[in-house]
């Protein structure tokens, strides 16, 4: 249904903009699902960071943590992975080096989110604001790194040196530019979805998100600890997304390493109704949209920004539908973001 809605919206927008509708839609298709190469090297490659950041946002929102900072956490994760990989380049073997770099990415993301967590728990600072601030700090931090300590040896371009091959995520054979990060991302999203549904920790997290006071009084749940863990987990996943992007796709640290994955992640998570496992599907959809948009621009001269309009419309439609649904229920005091019932 969503796919039909997207095709319809795209056709409408193309029509309104005076672009060739048929050619535009054809390009959107051929650039995303139309060929094995497009599917693996464009769609899936873009979906990987969206799966990780989408799962990150889903977990956070479920726990009542409004993390708008996946973008910043992704950036520091990317920087940490690049930093570790570049400084370990001379020593260390294959697997431990790569694993260390990924671990550093997750750790850096978690630390970045922990700042927002501390600010909220110690000083009552809304994480919506603090995570946005931290996004900008991270952006400038990367901008500094690629012009300072991590700049490539010739000191001409604002980017790091290329990371040695030993640290690259292995490519998946027969799938073009697609790398092993996909497997990692799906495994983690699946594990997170399973844990939310089937473990005590998952129950505590969701209960805290639904109603902190009820969780504390009726459930005897350590709300502060649970919230802190949610912050750390969302940060670690988003940071890992940055590490995976650096070690699997860009292979060097750039300033514009993320085209806003951390923001798109919000749409991805919402459309998945905050279920990390469903995030895999919605991330694939958004990955396809962005891959198709590139093709649309190349083949039919349609501005790729059109896709942002479609994404925004999707988010608004989902939130509106959820709000309408909750309005119909009598005496309803639950949050508007109704997650999948489990």
């Amino acid at each position, binding site marked *: 249904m969503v796919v039909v809605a997207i095709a319809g919206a795209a056709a409408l*927008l193309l029509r309104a*903009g*005076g*672009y060739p509708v048929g050619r535009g839609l054809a390009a959107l298709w051929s650039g995303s699902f139309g060929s094995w190469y497009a599917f693996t090297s464009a769609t899936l490659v873009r979906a990987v960071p969206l799966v990780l950041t989408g799962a990150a946002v889903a977990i956070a929102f479920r726990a009542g943590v*409004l993390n*708008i900072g996946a973008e910043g956490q992704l950036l520091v994760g990317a920087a940490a992975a690049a930093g570790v990989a570049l400084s370990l380049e001379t020593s260390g073997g294959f697997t431990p080096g790569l694993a260390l770099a990924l671990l550093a990415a997750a750790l850096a993301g978690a630390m970045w989110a922990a700042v927002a967590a501390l*600010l909220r728990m*110690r*000083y*009552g*600072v*809304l994480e*919506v*604001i*603090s995570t*946005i*601030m*931290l*996004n*900008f*700090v991270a952006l*400038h*931090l990367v*901008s*500094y790194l690629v*012009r*300072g300590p991590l700049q490539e040896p010739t000191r001409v371009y604002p980017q790091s040196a290329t990371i040695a091959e030993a640290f690259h995520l292995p490519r998946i054979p027969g799938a073009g530019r697609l790398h092993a990060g996909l497997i990692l991302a799906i495994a983690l999203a699946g594990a997170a979805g399973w844990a939310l549904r089937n473990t005590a920790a998952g129950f505590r997290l969701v209960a805290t998100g639904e109603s902190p006071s009820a969780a504390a009084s009726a459930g005897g749940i350590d709300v502060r600890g649970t919230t802190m863990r949610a912050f750390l987990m969302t940060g670690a996943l988003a940071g890992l997304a940055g590490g995976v992007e650096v070690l699997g796709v860009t292979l060097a640290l750039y300033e514009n390493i993320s085209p806003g994955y951390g*923001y798109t992640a*919000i*749409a991805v998570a*919402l459309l998945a109704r905050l279920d990390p496992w469903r995030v895999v599907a919605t991330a694939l959809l958004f990955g396809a949209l962005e891959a198709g948009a590139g093709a649309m621009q190349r083949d039919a*001269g349609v*501005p790729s*920004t*059109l*896709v*942002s*309009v*479609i*994404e*925004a*419309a999707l*988010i*608004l439609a989902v*939130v*509106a539908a*959820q*709000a*309408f649904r*909750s*309005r119909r229920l009598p005496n*309803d005091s639950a*949050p*508007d*973001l109704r997650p999948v019932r489990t």
Partner: protein
Amino acid sequence: MNDVVEAFLAATVRTAVPLGLAAFGELLVERAGLINIGLEGAILAGAFGALVGASAGVEMGFVGAAIAGLLVGVLFALCVIWIRADQIITGTALTLLSVGATGTLYRALYGSGGAALGIPTSEPLAIPGLSSLPVVGTALFAQPPITYFAYLIAPALAWWFRRTHAGLALRAIGERPEAAETAGIAVDRARVLAILTGGVLGGLAGGTLVLAQAGTFAEGMSSGRGFIAIAIVVLGRWTPHGVAAGALLFGAASALQYAFQAMGWNAPYQVFLVVPYLLTLAALAGAVGRARAPAALGRTLESRR
């Protein structure tokens, strides 16, 4: 030395004006107990509206900016007040929508090479007497008219919040919407008006970027100013004069880099760019108790029965 100070002041004011305009708009929204992350989208839409309007002159450029900002406000009000959708998510979506829509329209109307260089710009208007003051004269008082408009907002808003029925009502809504409702205040209507005014001011901020500064439009040219404006509201502790000071502080921080460059200092410029964000976080953390956010801020609205 005077030259450096003058250039520094001028750069401070130049950066502060659009930030201040947007932040005053967000201040109204937040005092009504709402938070509009879509402000970034309003600024960007305003910038594009200014470009379109400017083909009929500078004044029409500002009108176009205001209308574009208003449109974003209308969408936000529709989602948040009418449908009762989540504010944060709606705001995020509206920013995304604005990025997409302005980018698409810009490329559709002006071609991917862009055009629109040499649109009319807002000329500085020197205030007789004041503008010939030493050092501060040209920096503060030989500015495009929109700058003077921005100067006037802080005292006007402060007066409005403190002395008018509507201003007091809006503050009451931000603290205890249910109580305000009981007291006979039309909560939804007041909030819609605050949102729309905030949208217009955000649009004008974008218009300022195009018509009084850059002289052209570029995709994504709001570059985070909407989020900075939200930070300024927090930094300014939800008061009009605090917001004005916050905007100037952000302006000064980004102007510092030029000043230091002029003086031959070689610190990484990102240090200066980061200072305002860190300051905001520090102010938020240290200011609890003294500066409290409106109590109802960001809370999803109760469903209407």
